[in-house]
């Protein structure tokens, strides 16, 4: 089964490869689960593969929990409707935990730290360090998720209460907020360094106005729209300013 877990782990790296609005990550989950189902009898193998590819949506790094748990449940002869319910029940918690832990924690914390280092002239080494440290956590989380799912099977919810996960989430939130807060003024200084005095002042005032716009109409405006709008205004200003 070690070989099956290794194959499943490798396939999990491409779990979003066929992302679609009908089954979301379902096909990727089915593909990742398939190596763990090969020991099943002929009569059980194909229905299990078909079930594995049903609708599924969660954080991609934690999908392994569902893959391992569902595969284990198939091996233990758990009734199909119970496996379907297990998959459905895991979508929300895995999505929520992964978003808080990775998208709103680990990733912006390390990215903000990298921006601070780059703004303080650390150069490409800071970017390399970001990539290495981030992926140590990334790969470890994917492996832990798959292993925990396979170990706990239908009782996988116990793995979600692992104290390390909760401690990491509690620590990474404030760390992320501090790191990105630190990065913003230093990035402003780094980016605006080549501007003349009026340009630096203009950048601060324009950033303030754009920030208020994004806070006020965040439901309609995005950073991209504001940036494109400001770039268009800048081109027009340059054109009409004698």
């Amino acid at each position, binding site marked *: 089964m070690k070989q099956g877990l290794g194959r499943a782990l490798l396939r999990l*790296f*491409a779990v979003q*490869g*066929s*992302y*679609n*609005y*009908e089954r979301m990550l379902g*096909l990727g989950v089915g593909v990742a689960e*398939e190596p763990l189902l090969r020991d099943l009898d002929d009569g059980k193998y194909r229905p*299990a*593969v*078909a079930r594995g*590819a049903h609708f599924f949506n969660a954080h991609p790094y934690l999908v392994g929990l569902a893959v391992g748990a569902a595969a284990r449940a198939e091996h233990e002869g758990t009734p199909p409707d119970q496996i379907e319910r297990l998959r459905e029940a895991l979508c929300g918690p895995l*999505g929520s935990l992964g978003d808080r832990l990775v998208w709103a924690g680990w990733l*912006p914390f390390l*990215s903000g730290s*990298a*921006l*601070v280092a*780059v703004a303080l002239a650390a*150069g490409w080494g800071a*970017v390399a360090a*970001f*990539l290495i440290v981030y*992926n140590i956590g*990334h790969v470890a989380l994917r492996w832990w998720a798959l292993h925990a799912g396979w170990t706990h099977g239908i009782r996988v919810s116990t793995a979600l209460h692992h104290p390390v996960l909760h401690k990491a989430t509690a620590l990474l*939130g*404030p760390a*992320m*907020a501090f*790191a*990105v*807060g*630190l990065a*913003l*003024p230093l*990035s402003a*200084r*780094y*980016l*605006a360094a080549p*501007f003349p005095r009026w340009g630096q002042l*203009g950048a601060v005032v324009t*950033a*303030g*106005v*754009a*920030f208020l716009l994004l806070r006020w109409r*965040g439901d309609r405006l*995005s*950073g*991209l729209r504001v*940036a*494109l709008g*400001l*770039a268009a205004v*800048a081109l027009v200003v*340059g054109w009409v*300013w004698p």
Partner: protein
Amino acid sequence: MALLVWGTLVGVDLVSLPQMMIARPIVAGTVTGAILGDIPTGLKLGLMFELLQYDILPVGAVRYPEYGPATVAAVATAHASAGVLGLGLGALVGLVTAMVGGVTINELRRLNSRIVHAATSTLESGDPRALMRLHVGGVLRDALRAALVTAFGLFLAWLARPLLAGPLSARDAIVLAVAAVASALAAGAAGTLRLVGKGPKLGWFAAGLGGGLLVAVWLR
């Protein structure tokens, strides 16, 4: 050619494979700079687009711009036009490429949905080879999409210099760069505040911001 390959890898990394964050602008930009022999420009544009990336939280089926290949195109533009002019022009090319990239991601997902829907009976039969074929097809379509977005961005980069660099005065270039930097800072701050919320993390954000301001003033 190297930029096209790198931009494609960056585009595929965003969603499909392996999500190791080479799609983050700070990484995509730095490596593009290294390919072009101009790491400082790669770092600068990478940092600017990384701030814009904070505006995005990729949860559920949310639609978002694609800043990875956009940063590749932005650095290619900036490398061809020196100084502040490069920063402004690079940002402009990158922003348009990011918008187009975002549209293509949505269209690809819709296409994948149609293909998966059409294959429902095959999928329900539990044929592992059919499942694998459909999945690999999705990855290959994403690779093609990423290559096309990168090619579009590099084409814009090639066009930007003769079309915009000539008519723009030094002052116009500064105004454009100021707009780009200001919007990146605003998007970075607004996006982070959405993550931070109104709880205790807000205090940590304020502490970081204050510390950053102090260091920035101290380094002047």
